[in-house]
């Protein structure tokens, strides 16, 4: 695989991971988790594990983001710390 693309994907994973913790808006954090999950799916597809990438795409970018948004809807939208 072209190593520049891998480097960019890894960098986005790092940025999404740190950003999801630092952001004050919980809905934004949920979306950042979704983006993180999508980049992990790409990483696993680069490494050749297609089944794992499929599972990560369906669970992380589909179900997990929806469940996070439903939880944020029921509690507050701004983080308490």
């Amino acid at each position, binding site marked *: 695989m072209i190593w520049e693309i891998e480097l960019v994907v890894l960098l986005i994973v790092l940025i999404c991971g740190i950003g999801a913790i630092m952001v004050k808006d919980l809905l934004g954090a949920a979306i950042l988790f979704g983006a993180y999950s999508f980049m992990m799916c790409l990483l696993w597809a680069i490494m050749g594990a297609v*089944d794992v990438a499929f599972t990560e795409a369906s669970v992380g970018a589909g179900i997990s983001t*929806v469940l996070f948004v439903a939880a944020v809807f029921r509690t507050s939208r701004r983080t308490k710390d």
Partner: protein
Amino acid sequence: MFGGLLIYFTQDFPSWGDPQAPASMHVSPRYIEKTMEETSVPNIVTAVLADYRGYDTMFETIVIFTAGIASILLLRVLKRTKSERQMYRHVPTGLTLRIEKGFGPPPDSKDFERIDLMWVPYDLIVKTGSRLIVPFSQLFALYVIAHGHHSPGGGFQGGVILGASIILFAISNNLRSSFTLISEKLAVLLCGLGVILYAGTGALCMFFGSNFLDYGALSQILGVDLVTARSHGILMVEIGVGICVMAVMVLLYYNLASAGRHDEGL
């Protein structure tokens, strides 16, 4: 500092994809060579997951089932009193009423419909879009479950996509209209049915004298040879996993989006 120590110790591992590592000298070649002739399933990942390591997948399914039951036990509120603030909409004129403290319109009148506290007017794009997407995504999910032998996929992924299609329907239309389709009782029953399918296939193999989850024993009731019986055993097990996962996704969304009360939602 602990992370630094861990990173230092990972230098000792064999490098990724090394053909001399023990994992690729003993474990992988046996599976890669023997899968096609023992189970006739081209997808090695599905064969390892559901046949060679089927015991672990059964416990994984039970863990998912436990997560669904835990969400019910933690979040579900069973009180029969109505919430204090309900909103009703008078359909012929379009008026919205906010009713406090338990009074309400007569329950059988067709002019009043109950709406959520955060109600938006009828949105054509969202409803039509989800109406188009939901049947096709369900069809795709069934394809993923059934085609897990030859393509990436299998029971777990197909079950998640099936659950996601029902959640899409619940988001675009009312949550209450989704309750008429998949009620809570049906979802819990499906949950248990998935686990029973999986464990039942294993127990069925034990009735014919083999070990637990040894699908070769199924060749006596299915009437095919040993290799195809294993392939069919994998299919039955994947269907069980898919059903359980779909029911758990739906249950998790119901309990989270309505905070356990199951009357309003996203």
